[in-house]
């Protein structure tokens, strides 16, 4: 009973937090497009996004488990766009950006590692 209450209040707080973020984003978008949104619109959008995130997390968990992993990969996220080609191109672009970003930091690390290894070899 008490834990049920607690879970409900945690969910409530998470939703409040989401509401705030979505509200900020909607306000910003509206400023750019010379629009306005009713508070009810933001609330309904929050509920929709919350539900979508819940569904997404179930999907991601299922995808990862299907691949026999306990860690969600970028491949699992890409699978979310399997029914929508436009979305797939958007996500693929984002994935490339993320990879490029990671690659830059990763390459730096690799180069440092190589340099230290090289030193070790010349010593030998």
């Amino acid at each position, binding site marked *: 009973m008490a834990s049920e209450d*607690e879970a409900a*209040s*945690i*969910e409530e*707080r*998470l*939703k*409040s*937090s*989401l*509401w*705030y973020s*979505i509200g*900020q*984003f*909607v306000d910003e*978008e*509206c*400023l750019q*497009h*010379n*629009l*306005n*949104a*009713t*508070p*009810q*619109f933001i*609330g*309904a*959008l929050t*509920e*929709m*996004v*919350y*539900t*979508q*995130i*819940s*569904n*997404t*997390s*179930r999907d*991601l*968990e299922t995808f*990862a*488990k299907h691949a026999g992993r*306990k860690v969600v*990969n*970028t491949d699992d*996220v890409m699978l*979310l766009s399997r029914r*929508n080609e436009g*979305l797939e191109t*958007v*996500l693929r672009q*984002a*994935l490339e950006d*993320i990879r490029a970003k*990671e690659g830059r930091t990763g390459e730096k690390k690799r180069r440092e590692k190589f340099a230290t290894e090289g030193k070790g070899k010349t010593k030998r």
Partner: protein
Amino acid sequence: MPPKAQPRKGPGFKPPRPVKPAAQAARPSAKRASDTADARAGASKKAATAGLSFQAAATLISSDSELEDEESPQNTDLDEDMVDELSPQRAPATTAAYHPEEQTTAPIPLPLLARLLHEGFDDKGMKMQQGALELAGKYMETFVREAIARAQFERGDADKGGAIQDGFLQVEDLEKLAPQLVLDF
């Protein structure tokens, strides 16, 4: 073709309801009343953000706050965390000073998205790669942007139909676009 009448097991779409009376609202605010003084101030601020008027209940509740003092510590921790996250950002939002360069990022901050996603995992041992989280952030950003863009489109249609052209996005716009949007994502 027989229709596949197997609904998803996820939580259903609940449209916003009117705020419940103080009797129900008293519970969360009682928990907040047991927090430190500054956290309490922040909490009521947060309640105002969410459009839930807890203030009236908070004054009622302060008398029996001793009863609620044995609140589990992680709960109060969480509350303070969220207050810390929210209250400093709220001030610039309400003032006229607007910094678009700060705001042009995702609609959902990644830590919040991570928390929400982990909340949805059945297996609590499930983890996410950082890249996967960023990609999921892009996915949700696209979802929200698409929702707003389609609502704008619906509003344009509705305004052409006649009546008032105030350009306010309404819940009914969202109702019209929601089925197709969810099918597309």
